[in-house]
């Protein structure tokens, strides 16, 4: 995952109307979309809401001028576990339906149920929408801007400081990780080379892990000492300059937030026959 960090950060340095927006506006919209999508009950109501949200995402992704391949690559990176759970759903019953109708009978007494297929699709839609907004946020906002945006939105000072420190050093360890991998490859070592004894491969990887741990601890000690030299103390915190949101940010929120808030409400009203 750390290998992808540089790729993700590179995307955030592109120029587009979405990249230029204040991080706060993008954080608010992404989190609102995720919470709204998760809040929709596990019912067919998810389809119109998810469809609308995904359309909003597609428009915003288009505005970001990023390639669809970037999106596909990012999604593939996080898909496996979610997809595994979703695929298993079609073979099992769940508490969200009162009765199940088998549409296919497989060996070993395994059945595919119509309701379970619907439930799996509901999960898939919710999952994809949530992931898509996170991908949008992290592909158009620099890590430091995300941190400052979160700080301006009220993230406690203890967290902005520690997260800020961590984020800064993630890139350092990203380089170290890359160098360690290169030096292992230069010695013709591959953890997946089955010609090497498995115990030897594990031991080498364990020492790599131990070395990374020691290096990070030592880096932490050096950083801590350097910060002390600069007057760091108990009351220190990350300075975040006050910055008002611009007209474009408000316009962005005024356009997109109503979609995120009103779509589930309208869909629910329509499905319950109240409108």
């Amino acid at each position, binding site marked *: *995952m*750390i*290998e*992808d960090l540089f790729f*993700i950060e590179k995307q955030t340095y592109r120029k587009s109307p979405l990249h230029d927006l204040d991080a706060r506006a993008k954080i608010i919209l992404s*989190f609102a979309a*995720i*919470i709204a*999508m*998760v809040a929709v009950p*596990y019912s067919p109501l998810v389809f119109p809401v998810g469809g609308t949200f995904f359309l909003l995402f597609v428009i915003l992704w288009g505005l970001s001028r990023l390639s669809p391949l970037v999106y596909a690559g990012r999604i593939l990176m*996080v898909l496996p*576990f*979610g997809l595994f*759970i979703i695929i298993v759903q079609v073979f*099992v019953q769940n508490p*969200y339906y009162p009765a199940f109708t088998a549409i296919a009978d497989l060996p070993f007494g395994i059945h595919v149920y119509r309701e379970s297929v619907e439930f799996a699709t509901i999960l898939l839609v*919710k*999952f994809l*929408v*949530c*992931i898509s907004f*996170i991908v949008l*946020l*992290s592909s158009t906002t620099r890590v430091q801007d*995300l941190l400052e945006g979160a700080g301006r939105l009220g993230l406690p000072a*203890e967290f902005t*400081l*520690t*997260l800020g*420190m*961590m984020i*800064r*050093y*993630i890139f350092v*360890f990203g380089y*170290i*990780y890359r160098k360690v991998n290169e030096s292992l490859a230069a010695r013709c070592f591959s*953890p*997946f080379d089955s010609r090497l004894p*498995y115990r030897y491969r*594990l031991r080498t*990887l*364990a*020492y790599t*892990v*131990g070395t*990374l*741990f*020691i290096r*990070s*601890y030592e880096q*932490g*000690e050096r*950083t*801590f000492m350097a*910060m*002390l030299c600069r007057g*760091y103390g*108990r009351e220190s915190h990350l300075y975040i300059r006050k910055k008002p949101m611009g007209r474009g940010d408000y316009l962005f929120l005024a356009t997109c937030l109503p979609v995120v808030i009103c779509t589930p409400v309208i869909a629910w009203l329509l499905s319950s026959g109240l409108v």
Partner: protein
Amino acid sequence: MIVVHIPDAFIPLPQAAVYWIIALIFIALALRWARAEMREEKVPLVAVLAAGIFAIQAVNVPIPWGTSGHMMGAALAAVVLGSPFAAVFVLTLVLIVQGVLFGDGGITVMGANIINMGVVGGFVGYYSYQGLNRVFKNPYPSAFVAAWFSLLVAALVCAVEMAIAGTFPLGLGLFSMGLYHAVIGVIEGAITAAALYLIFTARPDLISTSEGVTA
């Protein structure tokens, strides 16, 4: 080995909110631990260490049947830093970055993931290590079993949470996730023990003799 990252949408919002509240209590306790035990000034050190754990989690480990996995690292952090709260602190930072930057895990379910990996992984890893070390009088087999057990219990708790959410049957979840993690937990245990050996050999001063590894 980190397959216990529950993604967004797999836990309904009200349940996710409960997990967030529980996680926030442990995060507050971890911050209090950092202030009391490490002195507040040393918090940056843990933050840099969290970046290191993030890198450690990126190390691809071959799993015998042809796939690969990653370490959880909660037991390693708890044992070396001498407190389960260290694992909560470090894993919380790691999970925030993984959830917000990579979409690995999620936003609404982050509380549940912090509980599984930070709280359960850290507490089970630390206390089973402490107990076993008293019996074996040898830190390395103790660390091996503690890391294996912490991964297994974290996976089982994850299965229970998903069963409560109604997104995965309890029996199948406990069996499949339990069996898978019981097997790959052996690798987590072996790497933790060997990494601990290296740390203890290269920098014995890093490890608290009263609470952490005692050779």
